[in-house]
């Protein structure tokens, strides 16, 4: 059996597909926790991208960026989940469509 050699493009495509799945998740689901998880998926897509480029150019700068992405994701998760808890405590729901307190 013959395979074409795996180039960084393959990884970039994988990353694009993963990103799209994340986008679908954000658009379709209304459960705010699932939304956050979809965003994490997109972060991961970005990271695969960065690491693939790092492998392509034989330089660790891509990986350094991925570290920053992970740090930002951690911060996002902490604050986001804090917001979710505060929201849940007030409204007893996780549906994002009911997050309309600031609607004019």
């Amino acid at each position: 059996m013959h395979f074409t050699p795996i180039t960084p493009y393959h990884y970039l495509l994988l990353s694009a597909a993963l990103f799209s799945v994340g986008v679908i998740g954000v658009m379709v689901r209304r459960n705010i926790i699932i939304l956050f998880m979809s965003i994490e998926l997109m972060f991961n897509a970005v990271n695969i991208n960065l690491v693939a480029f790092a492998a392509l150019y034989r330089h660790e700068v891509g990986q350094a960026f991925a570290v920053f992405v992970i740090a930002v994701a951690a911060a996002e998760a902490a604050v986001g989940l804090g917001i979710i808890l505060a929201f849940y405590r007030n409204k007893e729901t996780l549906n994002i469509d009911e997050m309309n307190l600031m609607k004019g």
Partner: protein
Amino acid sequence: MLDAIAFYTLAALILAFAIAVITARNPVHSVVFLVINFLAVAIVYIVLGAEFLAMIQVLVYAGGIVVLYLFVVMLVNLKRGPEAHQDPRRQTGAGVGLAVAVLAELTAILAYTGRNPLPAVVPAASARGPGGNTEQLGWLLYTTYLIPFEVASMLLLVAMIGAIVLARKVD
């Protein structure tokens, strides 16, 4: 050939579990799929020669952030069942459309820039000798990117304080 098998298996796993994450009815199941997804992504990193990042992915993402998710899911799941799945305001069509658009756009860019073939990905072991690239990554983070690194640490501190303030019960 080994790298091809590895890639296609991992890609299938990653996408399958990503789809499982966004389709699962029970958020706890979503979280479990997310963990498996992250583990598969970590293996991708190893294949790409980023062992340190792979370990950070498992330690921080799978072992830390997702535990937080699980924690919150369990807390808010105590009284109510899983979120109702048939939601009139689901934007399935728009979502899939947008996602397809994103995918098409990215693929187009790839196809456009990728007309000149690139070299195959170098297997992990030969990328940077037996020592791995952890040291180089460290040098990079603490010299060239020292300021962003410090900014990231400030961000984490601020996020920590913010999370504490947000989650605290308002009496």
